């Protein structure tokens, strides 16, 4: 299933994907190789003066890069100097990393007064301008390379301490740390064996992004005459010596400056690449920002089932995950129609493709990596997948709107409820801000939020989970949509709150229906996505059951739940615990669903099905059992034939 790769190999492959970081790596490798070979290269002694040959220009005989004012060979000094700068820079980085990470780990893990104490110390260090602090340290200990190294390391400790502390704090509350503590692990044990391996990538990333900076700082101190002392060459001191001759012999200072530039650029390019590979926040394709709409591959225009006159007709919808040259289907040939005023439930377990289906309907599935490879989604007969972007955006949030599972993630944390509502209203309706306010207020009372005037000024975090979801519903209903797509809107809520939200949604649906009876005959159509068959019974007239990216059964809620035809629906119902039921449901369905993207060609349920046979390996069509009932199972096809 998964290609065999070692973590190291994977690291290189991912690093190589960032071309610039490969360039950085090559440049750095070249400089490193040169520096390592320096003692064996046929070069003159870098510190021997030769006043007869002073200030030779580059490309003169015996001196490729010329000489400085004491007649010393610049190429030799440059190579030896780079060695010194690199060693000092890296040792300082490692020292800062070691001390800083230790402080960060300890204060993030223990927290409380240890954290306060250590962090106030770190804050104090940070309060000084770094160069000033380094100067003070060197001034106190006297000039010299070693002291410059200490100074640079100390100055950079806070950077590591803060980064590592942040990463530690986010891990300490994780259950595996609690489990280790419950497993009798000592503090040292938790720090070294549980926390450190998880923090290490953060430390490596920080090292790779600061090493260039540290080399620059070392050069800075040497430039001021506080680092390397004559006659020792290092890039900074060479720059300092050449400064006086900038106009008479520019090459003396330009050459070390160029080396510093190349060194720091290559380190930063490499550091960027390393960060992209190791930073967990940037993993999983987050670097590639999705386009405003899902890519649609096929250009089918008029195909589609004849005779379906629903509000929203989905035909043959297939959405794929496109990664590394392979397209893996997540949603396979999904057909359904949503009639005016109808609530259709889309039920399935995690990874069955129900959310991807929902997002594909308004071309919202993140692309890349997702793409719609076939199918049409018709709103009143118009295919919305292939509309120009501007027209599609006019439909989103107006004619088709969404509610998602996590209201806290859906709402913008820095805008008030009122601002967010008014924004959505005014995007699609030409209202003045005063009219927008009035409209927003009436929406909030429509979703039964008490004291709507006060809540207009509230921020999302000031509301409870149930209230937040009401706000999301208000936003979804703001422009009187024809189709509402609700993706697990009550899953994150407590059951008593869930009951309230379901009741609200049901009432809203009914009132829009009543409105429409006077005017046009369009009520709010709802696609309700959930994993909970109980919720479906409460709110949906019809249900489509999804498994492994396909609809396996479709029918009216009552009859489908009373007499399920597909073995999966039957098994799912049998293992749903019911309060007060006579029998226990212990056991469940053996095995696990196929992971997204690895769906078999035939029936997805074949491995877990009690009645599976060899025929189940071939693709199976949805069989129309009656006008309102469909099932995708070989057994039913045989018994019907």
């Amino acid at each position, binding site marked *: 299933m998964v290609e065999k790769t070692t973590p190291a190999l994977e690291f290189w492959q991912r690093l190589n994907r960032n071309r610039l970081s490969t360039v950085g790596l090559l440049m750095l490798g070249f400089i490193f190789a040169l520096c390592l070979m320096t003692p064996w290269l046929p070069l003159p002694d870098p510190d021997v003066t030769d006043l007869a040959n002073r200030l030779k220009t580059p490309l003169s005989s015996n001196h490729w890069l010329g000489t400085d004012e004491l007649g010393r060979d610049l190429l030799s000094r440059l190579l030896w100097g780079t060695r010194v700068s690199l060693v000092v820079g890296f040792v300082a980085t490692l020292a800062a990393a070691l001390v800083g990470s230790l402080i960060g780990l300890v204060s993030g893990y223990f927290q409380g007064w240890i954290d306060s104490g250590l962090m106030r110390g770190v804050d104090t260090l940070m309060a000084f301008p770094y160069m000033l602090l380094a100067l003070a340290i060197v001034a106190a200990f006297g000039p010299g390379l070693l002291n410059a190294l200490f100074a640079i390391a100390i100055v950079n400790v806070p950077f590591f301490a803060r980064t590592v502390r942040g990463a530690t704090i986010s891990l300490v509350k994780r259950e595996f740390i609690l*489990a280790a503590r*419950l497993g*009798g692990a000592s503090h040292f044990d938790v720090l070294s*064996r549980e926390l450190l391996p998880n923090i290490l990538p953060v430390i490596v990333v920080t090292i790779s992004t600061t090493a260039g900076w540290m080399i620059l700082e070392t050069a800075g101190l040497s430039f001021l005459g506080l680092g390397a002392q004559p006659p020792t060459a290092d890039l900074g001191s060479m720059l300092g010596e050449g400064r006086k001759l900038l106009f008479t012999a520019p090459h003396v200072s330009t050459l070390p400056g160029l080396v510093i530039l190349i060194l720091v650029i290559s380190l930063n390019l490499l550091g960027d690449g390393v960060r992209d590979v190791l930073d967990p926040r940037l993993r999983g394709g987050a670097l590639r920002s999705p386009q405003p709409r899902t890519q649609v591959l096929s250009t089918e225009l008029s195909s589609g089932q004849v005779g379906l006159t629903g509000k929203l007709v989905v035909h043959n919808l297939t959405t794929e995950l496109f990664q590394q040259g392979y397209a893996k289907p997540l949603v396979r040939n999904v057909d359904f129609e949503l009639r005016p005023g109808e609530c259709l439930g889309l039920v399935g377990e995690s990874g069955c493709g129900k959310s991807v289906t929902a997002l594909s309907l308004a071309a919202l599935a993140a692309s890349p990596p997702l793409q719609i490879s076939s199918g049409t989604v018709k709103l009143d007969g118009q295919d919305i997948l292939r509309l120009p972007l501007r027209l599609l955006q006019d439909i989103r949030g107006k004619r088709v709107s969404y509610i998602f599972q996590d209201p806290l993630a859906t709402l913008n944390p820095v805008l008030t409820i009122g601002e967010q509502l008014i924004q959505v209203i005014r995007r699609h309706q030409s209202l003045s801000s005063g009219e927008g306010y009035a409209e927003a207020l009436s929406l909030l009372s429509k979703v039964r939020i008490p004291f709507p005037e006060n809540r207009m000024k509230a921020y999302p975090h000031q509301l409870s989970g149930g209230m937040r979801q009401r706000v999301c519903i208000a936003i979804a209903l703001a422009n009187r949509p024809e189709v509402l797509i609700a993706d697990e809107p009550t899953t994150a809520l407590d059951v008593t709150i869930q009951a309230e939200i379901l009741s609200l949604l049901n009432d809203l649906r009914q009132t829009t229906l009543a409105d429409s009876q006077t005017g046009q005959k369009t009520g709010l159509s709802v696609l309700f996505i959930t*994993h909970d068959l109980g919720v479906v*019974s409460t709110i949906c007239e019809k249900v489509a059951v999804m498994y492994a990216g396909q609809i396996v059964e479709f029918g009216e809620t009552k009859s489908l*739940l009373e007499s399920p035809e597909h073995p999966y629906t039957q098994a799912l119902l049998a293992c749903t615990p019911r309060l007060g039921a006579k029998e226990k449901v212990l056991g469940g*369905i053996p095995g696990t669903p196929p992971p997204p993207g690895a769906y078999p060609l035939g029936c997805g349920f074949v491995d877990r099905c009690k009645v599976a046979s060899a025929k189940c390996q071939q693709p199976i069509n949805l069989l129309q059992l009656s006008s309102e009932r469909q099932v995708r199972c070989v057994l039913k096809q045989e018994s019907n034939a």
Partner: protein
Amino acid sequence: MPEPLLQFDHVTKEFDLNKNWFGKPSNAFRAVNEVTWQVEQGAALGIVGESGCGKSTMARMAVGLELPTSGEVRFAGKTLGQWLKEDAILLRQSVQMVFQDPSASLNPRQRIREILELQLQRLTDFRAEQRTQRMEEVLEQVQLPSATLERYPHEFSGGQAQRISIARALISKPKLLLLDEPVSALDVSVQAQILLLLEEMRKELGVTYVFISHDLAVVEQLCPNVLVMYAGSIVESGPTRQLFEHRRHPYTDLLIKSVPVPGKSLELKSEEKADLENQGGCTFRNRCPKANQQCSRVPNLREVRGSIGGHECACHYPLSEAA
């Protein structure tokens, strides 16, 4: 009457929300309020309540991850404070916990072998071959192949990862297992597998369970007795079946009526709720349809008249039998 294995004796836990300049708490949140209960050796007790009702705080206090602000938590007769001082390793061996999120409860950088072996190294003085033997034994108990040992946590599905968590908890042969929402993050079909596994483990090993969940139906599968919590207090307790069928507390009633059941439509009432913040008294009074003046006094947990098996309810106006 068997001796109680775990006892909560008037336990209160407060968290400081704000501290003043001198580090003194100026605003405390009472997560658990004067709670008393116990569980006997070999029993399985369910604790039910919605998010924020204090059930997870209780679980943490039961294993000694948090210490109570007042009151005592006793395991096998000794307070956890004493245990931690005198023999922390024996306590850790005997009391283990399974967490809600299976993927977060396994260290992503360790192979399963390392996860399980570390637990054994820390809690037992087994030699290497004994450890290997025990690891294989416990993996067999949770029905996973021994090849599991060489893989990393991310290679497993939620259900498998939860089996590994259970294996880790059981590896030191504990007497008491705290299960904090162990199946809430799992799909229904997998949830039922884990419930069966837990039921088998209990029968086979005689482990005592404290099972914390927001899902009444799941608790009913596994626990003969149950506590219902609301806002830090126990509002009703008793034998599971009896409590659900003859519930007396209006909150229990609301909770049960809110659970959607496949094939049945919820009776959805669109009642307007007063958003008044009444301080003190019964914690449920702001949401309770029956609340009146009397409810500003804190109700005590009292035995329900005519009940068998210790059915208790904390309400001034308990529902009548007919409800």
